[in-house]
Each structure stands twice: as C-alpha cells, then as structure tokens.
C-alpha cells in the first residue's frame, strides 16, 4: 500500500482532485440556483451531456473553439428554457419534465452521434478541439502549491471563479434577491409585482449555463472526445454536493471538493489489485455516506444545543438576550 499512500500525498493527487471536481462544481452551482428559486432542476445530467456533445461536434466541423463554446452554452441555456416552458407555461411537473429531458439527452446524443459519425460509442473518429491549459507564471514556481494549482484547463479556473460569481449573483444583485424571494414565498414576490415565472425561467436558464460549462469541460478538457452517457452520474452527484453545501457557494464548493477527492482516490486505487467494479463504486458510496453523516450531524447538533442551554440555565444566569432565541434566566431556581 505504501506506493499508493505516496501517490496520494503527492502534488499530482492535488492536481487530480481539482481536475476531477471541475465537472462537479459547475452542475452543483447550476442545481443550487434552481433550488433557491424553487424550481429544482434535476436535468443537469442531460444538460451536460447535450453540451458535451454539441461542443465536440461544432468544434470538429468548424474548427473554431469559440463557436464550440457558444454552441455548448446555447444548448444548455435552451435546455433550461425548454424545461421552464414545460413547467411554467404548460404546467408539467418539473421532476417529470427533467426526467424526460435526461432521457431525451441520452437518446438524442447517441442518435446524432450515429448519424454524424456512424459510430454509436464515441466521437473518436473526429478531430476534437480542447480548451487550452493555463500556466500561471508566478504561481507555478511555488514548490508544492504551484504543481497543484498551475497548469489546469482554463475551465477549471472558470469553475473556481464561478463559485465567486455565484455568490455575487445571489447575494449582491437584484436578480439574486428576487430568486431568493421567489423560492421562499412566491406569493410575497407576486404581491410586489415580481413576475415569478420569469424569475424562475431565468434561474433555469442560468442553471443550463452552468451545466453547459460542466459538459463542455468533460468532452473538451477532461478528455478530448464525446462518448455515450459520458457524464456517468456527475449530474446527480452534483445535486448531492449542492444539497450538502446548503445551496451556498462555499458549502457547495467544499462538498464538490470532497466528492472530487473521493473520485480522484478511486482513480489512484485503480492501480492496485482490487476488482475495478468495487473501486468504481467508491464515489457513489461516498455520496450516500456523506448525506447520511450530514443528516446525523444535524440531529446531534440539535440535541447538543438543548443540553447546553439547559446546563447553562441551571449553572449560571445567562445574559439577558432578547427572546425568542435565547434561553431565559430561571429566577430562583438556585
């Protein structure tokens, strides 16, 4: 096991974690924004798949990275808008609508793949474009950190940046305020003349944008081809990450970091002599475990707060905090 440990504590491992978490951060933020707006979008898997596919195809046929990027993003936003149309205009259940989108995306990309390349498995016959890697001059010269942080795909940096953009969007812009208001109490938003449907539509389209970037990275950065169902559940793990992170940017980032590490670990362990099926289970098992642990911790914390408050009350008189949050002093209990 020692060579394995060595490799885990190497800077290569840190580098791999960032690489692996990129296609999780994007869709996780994409999910978070819709959940905040009260229109849970579980079709990120499908959005990523479509963008991954159209990015590769447009890139291969036009030779333009910019056009590939635009095509991928547009398809993601269009998927978000379509889901919004089904749900907000035609009043379809959003979960059913999203499931349909996922199934459509899987089937449609395979179909087009076959039509365009004659291959039902992957686009290996096409010359796919990839997004460039960026070497950050000063950073790369720092010993360990430089090796971990420098030399990534440009979309990896975009992913890190997008968590910050997400923060500003949600907390510092009028649209963000409206998204939060609509998600919490649509009637309240409606009562001040906010068009609830429109805000939710925007949230879904933004979700499509985030999902698209995750998909583009998969086929044009992480690897350089499109393969059928290549998202392999990342759109679902992303939902777990956002939930674990409470739909907040930092929390979501940390949860994605956790899942990224587990993923990277699975890749590293693959070099050891263990059945590969078992190893491939690791990220998914870790997801379930993390969610369960999270639920247990919330329970425990509530119990502890009660005990602490009781203790405090009997031991010493706590300061006179305003109700209802504070424990009130129990007069004459001594």
């Amino acid at each position, binding site marked *: 096991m020692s060579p394995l440990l060595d490799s885990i504590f190497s800077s290569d491992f840190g580098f791999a974690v960032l690489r692996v978490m990129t296609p999780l951060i994007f869709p996780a933020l994409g999910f978070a924004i819709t959940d905040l707006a009260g229109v849970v979008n579980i079709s990120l898997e499908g959005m990523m798949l479509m963008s991954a596919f159209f990015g590769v195809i447009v890139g291969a046929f036009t030779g333009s990275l910019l056009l590939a990027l635009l095509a991928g993003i547009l398809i993601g936003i269009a998927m978000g808008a379509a889901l919004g149309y089904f749900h907000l205009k035609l009043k379809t259940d959003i979960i059913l609508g999203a499931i349909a989108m996922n199934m459509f995306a899987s089937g449609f990309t395979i179909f087009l793949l076959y039509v365009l390349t004659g291959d039902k498995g992957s686009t290996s016959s096409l010359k796919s474009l990839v997004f460039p890697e960026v070497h950050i001059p000063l950073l790369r010269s720092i010993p360990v950190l430089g090796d971990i942080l420098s030399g990534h795909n440009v979309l990896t940096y975009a992913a890190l940046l997008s968590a910050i953009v997400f923060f500003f969007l949600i907390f510092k812009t009028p649209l963000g305020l409206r998204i939060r208001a609509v998600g919490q109490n649509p009637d309240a938003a409606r009562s001040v*003349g906010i068009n609830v449907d429109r805000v939710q539509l925007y949230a879904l389209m933004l979700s499509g944008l985030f999902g698209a970037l995750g998909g583009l990275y998969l086929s044009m950065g992480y690897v350089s081809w499109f393969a059928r169902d290549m998202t392999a559940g990342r759109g679902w793990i992303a939902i777990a990450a956002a939930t674990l992170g409470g739909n907040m940017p930092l929390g979501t980032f940390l949860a994605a970091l956790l899942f990224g590490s587990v993923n990277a670990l699975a890749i590293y362990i693959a070099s050891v002599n263990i059945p590969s099926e078992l190893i491939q289970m690791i990220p998914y098992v870790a997801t379930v475990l993390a969610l369960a642990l999270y639920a247990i911790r919330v329970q425990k914390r*509530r119990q502890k707060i009660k005990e602490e*408050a009781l203790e405090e009350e009997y031991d010493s008189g706590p300061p006179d905090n305003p109700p*209802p949050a*504070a424990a009130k002093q129990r*007069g004459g209990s001594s």
Partner: protein
Amino acid sequence: MAAILEVKNIEKIYPDGVIANKDVSVSVEEGTIHAIVGENGAGKSTLMKVIFGITRPQNGTISFQGQEVNFKSPDDAIQQGIGMVHQHLMLASDLTVAENLVLGIEPKRRGIFLDDHEMIRLTREVAQRFSLEVPPDKKIKDLPIGIRQRVEILKALYRKAELLILDEPTAVLTPQETEVLFRTLKQLKANGKTILFISHKLREVKEIADRVTVMRDSQVITTEDAAKLSEEDISHLMVGRDIRTERIPQSETTGEVVLETKGLSFVNEDEIFVLKDVSFSVRAGEILGLAGVEGNGQTELVKLLTGLLQPTDGEIFVRSKAISGLSPRKVREIGLAHIPEDRMENGVADQASVKENLIVDRYYKAPYSRRSRLLWKTITDHTLDLVKRFHILTRNVDTPVNSLSGGNIQKVVVARELSADPDVLIASQPTRGVDVGSEEHIHSLLRQVRDEGKAVFMVSADLDEVLKLSSRILVIYNGEIVAHIPDPSMVSAEDLGPYMLGVKRQEDLGAEIHS
C-alpha cells in the same frame, strides 16, 4: 371631505354561481378609518379583492381619487396608490426587513449590483417618516408577528399607498400588539392616509373607526358614523337579530388526569430552543387555557401534543399512556382531537371538498367504509348533518373548501374535530376569524365538550377568550410556563400582561400546575 374611493353597484358572482357581492356601493372618505363588518361569508374579503384587482366583478364601477379605474391585477392597484395587507402576510421569511421592503424596486449600484446601504437607508427613511420603527437588517423569521405586520404596512407605504386595505389585521395579534397597530393606524390617518379594514371584533371597530359599513348576505346594509352606532347596534345589523353574550359558568366537577406532559423540551430546525421543560396536566371536565404572546412556543407545544412533531426530551401521556413516537393517526385513535391554529396549513386540504375534509380523519373506519370501499351515501348523510349542526355556509358538500369564506373554513375544522368525540381536545385559536355569532356557538360547544367530561387544552391569542372559557390558565413566555392561574375569575387581562411579556413570573411552579 372628498371621497377617495367610490365603489358603485358592484356585483361579483364566482364561477360556481355563488353571489358574493350584490349591488354593493360604498364611499370611503379621504383621511378616515373605515371599517367593514359582517358575518362569515357576508362578502367582505371579496369586496376587498375586487377593489385591489385580485378578482374582477361582473358589474359595477370603482373610482379612486376621482377617476374611474379598472384594475387588471394588484399591480395596477399598487401603481395607483392602493396597498393591501393580507391576512396571511406576504413576506419572505429568510430575507431581511430591508430586502422585503425594496423587493421589486431595488436600489442599484453601478448598474447591476444591489445597493445594500441605500436599501437600509430607504428603510430607515420610510420607517421614520411614519414613525413605524423596524430593524432593517433583521430577518423576518426572527421577528414577532406584530412587527412583521408593520413591515407589510411599510411595504405598502414605500410604494406610495394612499389607501391601505387591511383584511382582519388584528386576528393574529395580541392585545398589546393590537394597541400598537391602532396607534400606527391613527398615525397614518394623521398623515392623511385612508384606511379600510375588516374586523370581527366590534370593540376594536368602535375604538378606532370613523365610519362603519355593515354587510349581510352579500349586500351593504348601511354605512354610518361609528360614533352613532353601539356595539349592539352593529351586531344587530350584521345578523338581523340580537346575539346574547353570556358568561359561561365553570363546571363543578373535574375528574382524573387525562392529558399530562412531563419535562417537554424541543429544539427546532433552526436550532432554537423553543420549549423548556414544560410540565402540566389537564383533568377530565376542565378547560386549561394557555395564554401568551404568539411565537413563545405555543405552536410547537400543540404540534408535540398532537404527534406532528416529536419532543427532543420529555414525555406526553394520554390517560397515563405515553404517546411520543406515535403517528398523528395513532394519537387520534387514542382519543385526541386537534383544532390547529393555521387552518389552511394543518386544518384542511384546501382543494378537496367540504365532504372530503369532514371525513379525512375517519374515512377508513365503519360506517364510512367497508372492506376498503368508501360508502358515499353514509358519508354524504353524515356530512350534511355536520354542515347543518355547525352552521357551515356552503353551497353544497361537494364545494371545494378553498371557495368558502375564512370563518366557514374554520367551522369545517371545528365540526370535524368535535364530532370525532375525543377524550382530549387540543384547540388552538378555535375562533380565529369567525364572526361574533359563530364565536358564541363555538364557545358553547367547547363548554359542552367540557361538561361531557372531556379534557380541553386551549391555546388562544385572544385573552378575553382565555379568561372567559378557562377553568385554569397557564401563561407561557419564551418556551416556559411562567404563571399558573387556578381561578381565572380572580384576574383580568391586565393582570396577565406582565407574565406574557416576561416582566413577571411566579416562582416554584412545579407541583401547582398539576393542581
């Protein structure tokens, strides 16, 4: 003085054929406080909805500030200077006061960013202009209901409302909060604003209204100066007969302990310690009243008692049988019934029919079903009987509950719970939103339940109600029982006030509460 609002010959017929407003004409003078009163289902809320553009009438005209208007949505009404404070407050609870206030017309910085400072400054400014203090950066969920309502009023003022409509604003307030609200309304009147409000509490109407419009059976009976009418006059006009208010005699005999709690504690999802070591018992044949300012743990206590929440610590006994961990259905089968405080949230399935709502707790039992089949004939007979016995105003029993008026929805809940023939009745705000006549009716029903030897635990924000009905009274403050009044006839509402506000508390309550 000139009329700011002139409503003429309004006719509103709902799609199901219910005539809610029939040839309704009201004129509201600028700078006055104008009350609308009437029995449940008289058409008051409908009239407000018509004025505010929520629903559109079939006939009639509305003029506002001298111009005929035709609002297509509340948006239009807001634009023109009408604000409405709904009974269910329209606030996002995780957002701050300032955020709620500017929502929809946010101040911006550099074109795209929210201007946090400006937001808070604007909040302070309107608050100051109308002397309505609010904490701009506190979240709504951390504020008591009275302050939330104030935020709602400020929201309307911030949007330059000249006419403010309030639908039963005092129904959810404590006496103290009501007083503050009334000061606010008078203040606004002094500022030249016009107030139009609905209330079932005639004492309040007498206290602050300049003019009163009485509605009965979808029609306006009269509009008069409030000073010219006594409370009796008004209630007579409302129902077309006199209502007798009687002092309810206390029952002589109390039996064994039926409901008991020991050391109940509860920590909620936001990790706030809402109930601390609550112990009390209720005997057969008595009504134990719980008084307290809303938001001091009453809601959670009732949910714990009825199995809707599980205690963090402590135990609840019904006839010495521990009930925690049991589902609400199991708790009901043991003999507990529950009139919940929020009828729309926990009382009814709002799109289901009156009939369905009246049997949701018993549909699976004989005689309502046999071998998993519902016996509709029996059910219909049973529910028709309940509708009649409890004076529920509805077209028929297949009408969806959400098209009944607020007070009649409450009666549906009361009818179901009382007809379940419980050993223990948990009644939370049992008469919220019902008119004077129905209030008397429900009170006498509660007394009847008590005299039949049932145990009643009643929570109410209406101190008069607590004082009138209770055999004993507990006062809750900040999640703790702070006072026990063994003989309510010896105290007045003013005596309870200091306990409710946490200024005063009785020592060594432990043994006494179990009387």
